[in-house]
């Protein structure tokens, strides 16, 4: 269906090729995922497939791209568009009409499809996407996930043979992301459409794609089935591409020589194969064992043994005046119904708290209340005892730094140094101390002082935005989805910087959809749904509460989910150890020991290291290590 032969392209403005020597064969009906670190050439590859290169961007075109026998250089963009449908990254720019119905009919009208057939196709794709009830709705009133479905439907209505999507789930929560991919997979199977999707969410791609292509620095480094690609995890890491945690775990157990099952992609696969291996190694796993006791009880008993409970409570945050306090808060936007309904919580100084929940739960509204961008319509929000209602946001900015999801909204200067200094300029504090703080930030964050911010990559711009907030050392930092649109490496860099800020005493509050990031860094999680708080507690306690997860439509991190699933079928000390393991390292040690027939289940001592609740890494130590 799609053949790329020695394909390369150099944009006219650039000296180097953005993509080179790409050879790919994509069969008809395949679902292909393209991934890679930032600036690896993924978007350029999609432009080559939908004809934007060379028809909209000029430059040097090498090799050939043939789609269903049509050479993309010789054919016009319109001819290619009859074959290839594109959903671009910026949905808002793609939408040309205000109504869902008109949006889907737009392309059909342009391509001269007869009216009756056009309407029939529209009804067909509305049904396929599950959005029939939105037919007469205004697109501006839809959620992000719904808009994404409308955009995809409007392209599918054209009956393309190939569908190209550039990061279709970048701004969607995990449940909505899966929903979109489910529909795409089903539709493409029924209509034999070849789908090519660029995605950073490798776990999602592995669940749906038949073929994964990993790019680095403009060329294809790895390609094959998800299993074939994931086996090369160390190479992927080196390229800045993450792999599902379950894959890393099963690989690590194989490397230790204690596990002979397959390298798994999903939690359920991992649980099945690891359980089978445990059974084979003689670890008692009565198939009908009923889980006994809650996780909290298990942790409490472990803490009692280790005697660390008191210290963990202390590390949860300093006692005294709360850094942020919400008391029965109601809030919303002008002319709309209340988004928050009676929200209550307090965050102590020094905590690292993550807010999770589906899109529309009220998380971003809560963040904006914290620095006074929104004032509560009822109730009280206070920052170190000062009510936000009585203090302008520009003054609160000295205490509460806010990192927005889109760094481009914040960046306004022509060099990195000026951008970092801008916060001090805005508050009239430009002096020698400010200059020193800027120099330190440049070094700490690894920035190029003279670079033009707008020419940096998205990840670097986000890092600059974070640095320009951190440079004035606010006591609280609020992050609204700091990792959206970033590749794994960029995400790690940002979060390591945030973690360092936290270690220096800054209170960190974060909204994040990526449960792996939340599990790695946060100590406490507040779950929101429909404008209310439904759970508030230590991260792994909340993530194991299945009722809360279902209510808020969120998933736990892969390692927590795996430990819960495995723990249900275990008993005794091994069960306790598995259930109290939450990270890759912990599960690797516990399962490695169990599969090797290592440490005795009854004598292992749990040491939930202090600081876990505050975001530090937790490690299970055996008796031998403690002596």
């Amino acid at each position, binding site marked *: 269906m799609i053949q790329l032969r020695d394909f390369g392209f150099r944009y006219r403005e650039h000296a180097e090729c953005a993509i080179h020597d790409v050879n790919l064969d994509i069969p008809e009906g395949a679902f292909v995922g393209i991934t890679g670190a930032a600036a690896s050439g993924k978007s350029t590859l999609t432009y080559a497939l939908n004809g934007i290169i060379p028809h909209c961007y000029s430059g040097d075109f090498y090799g050939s791209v043939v789609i269903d026998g049509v050479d993309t250089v010789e054919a016009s963009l319109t001819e290619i568009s009859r074959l290839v449908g594109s959903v*671009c990254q*910026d949905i808002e720019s*793609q939408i040309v009409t*205000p109504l869902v119905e*008109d949006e889907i009919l737009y392309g059909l009208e342009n*391509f001269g499809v007869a009216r009756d057939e056009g309407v029939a196709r529209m009804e067909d794709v509305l049904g396929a996407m599950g959005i029939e009830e939105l037919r007469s709705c205004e697109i501006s009133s839809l959620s992000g996930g719904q808009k994404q479905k409308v955009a995809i439907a409007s392209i599918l209505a054209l009956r393309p043979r190939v569908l190209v999507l550039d990061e279709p789930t970048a701004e969607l929560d995990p449940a909505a992301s899966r929903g979109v991919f489910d529909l795409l997979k089903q539709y493409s199977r029924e209509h034999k459409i070849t789908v090519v999707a660029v995605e950073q969410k490798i776990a999602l791609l592995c669940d749906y794609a038949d073929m994964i292509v990993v790019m680095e620095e403009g060329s294809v480094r790895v390609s094959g089935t998800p299993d074939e690609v994931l086996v090369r995890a160390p190479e992927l890491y080196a390229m800045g591409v993450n792999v599902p945690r379950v894959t890393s775990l099963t690989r690590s157990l194989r490397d230790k020589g204690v596990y002979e099952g397959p390298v798994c992609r999903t939690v359920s696969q991992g649980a099945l194969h690891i359980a089978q291996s445990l059974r084979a190694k003689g670890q008692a796993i009565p198939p009908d064992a009923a889980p006994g006791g809650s996780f909290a009880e298990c942790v409490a008993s472990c803490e009692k043994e280790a005697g660390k409970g008191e210290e963990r409570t202390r590390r949860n945050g300093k006692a005294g005046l709360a850094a942020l306090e919400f008391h029965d808060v109601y809030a919303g936007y002008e002319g709309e119904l209340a988004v928050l309904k009676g929200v209550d919580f307090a965050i102590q100084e020094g905590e690292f708290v993550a807010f999770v929940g589906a899109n529309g739960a009220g998380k971003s509204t809560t963040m904006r209340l914290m620095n006074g961008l929104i004032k509560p319509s009822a109730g009280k929000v206070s920052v170190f005892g000062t009510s936000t209602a009585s203090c302008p946001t520009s003054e609160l*900015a000295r205490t509460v730094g*806010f990192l927005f999801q*889109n760094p481009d*909204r914040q960046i306004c200067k022509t060099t990195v140094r000026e951008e970092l200094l801008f916060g001090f300029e805005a508050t009239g504090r430009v002096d020698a101390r400010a200059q020193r703080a800027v120099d330190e930030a440049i070094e700490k964050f690894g920035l190029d002082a003279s670079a033009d911010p707008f020419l940096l990559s998205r990840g670097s711009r986000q890092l600059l935005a974070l640095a320009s907030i951190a440079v004035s050392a606010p006591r609280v930092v609020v992050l609204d989805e700091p990792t959206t649109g970033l590749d794994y490496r960029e995400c790690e860099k940002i979060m390591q910087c945030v973690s360092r800020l936290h270690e220096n005493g800054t209170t960190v509050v974060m909204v994040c959809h990526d449960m792996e990031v939340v599990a790695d860094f946060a100590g406490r999680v507040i779950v929101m749904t429909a404008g209310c708080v439904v759970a508030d507690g230590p991260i792994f306690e909340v993530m194991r509460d299945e009722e809360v997860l279902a209510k808020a439509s969120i998933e736990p991190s892969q390692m927590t989910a795996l430990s819960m699933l495995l723990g249900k079928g275990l008993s005794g000390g091994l069960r306790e150890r598995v259930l109290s393991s939450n990270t890759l390292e912990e599960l690797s040690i516990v399962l490695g020991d169990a599969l090797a027939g290592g440490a005795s289940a009854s004598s292992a001592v749990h040491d939930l290291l202090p600081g876990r609740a505050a975001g530090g890494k937790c490690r299970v130590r055996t008796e031998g290590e403690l002596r």
Partner: protein
Amino acid sequence: MKGFLEYVDGTSVLHRMNPVAKLVCSFLTCIACFCTSNLPFLFAVLVGGFLLAVSCGMARQVVGLAKAVFMFSLILAIVQILTTSGGASLVMLPWGHIGTAGLVAAFTTVARLLAAAVPLFLTLYVTRMTDLANALVKNVRLPYKYAFTFTSTIRFIPAFLNDMAAIIEAQTARGVQFDQGGIVSRVRLTVPLCVPLLVSSVRKVNSAAIAAEVRGFSLRNAKSGYREYPMALCDGMAVAACVFLLAAALAVNVLF
């Protein structure tokens, strides 16, 4: 700024009128307002415009925009008061005086701008941009790219305003005092923010152009749209009424 110049759904006569007829009527009314300086005439047109807005449920939106036009026209009015010497002298100035003629000229300016603007705003509130573009292409044979340019401009205004609001929000959160100080200081603070707005605007427009191209934009012509926009009797009558209004404005100008 949400909803600025955005279509508001409804079922009034104005909503159901032909988009081209509405545009022609608003332009004719606008021209009529600039063809005469007769204050009673202009007030009558202004009142008529507001009554039309009330009849289709757009009173709140039109009043809101009228306030903005009024503030703008006030600046021109002040210039006229200070520079038009004539009539009974009210306040002496080094270069002349503020007279009744100046006051009348100021009132006329304000009334003219409001009377001319209200029908145009109303048209944008009661007409979907896509309907307007499609009707212009089908009925007037306007090349689609010009109609698309016009509707995209209108479509992007709220998007750019939202972007600007988000940028101001982000800068306020950094300590820039948009939420304190007077209008002069806020305008001064806004100037450097044109850079991020320009960058995001260019990116948005580039994406929009490419997205339209790959959906067959270049193929679209007068036959393409599924919807038809026939002219009905009320459309003809409305246009005739506005032509009469224009004639009346010219006549009033000659006679008075």
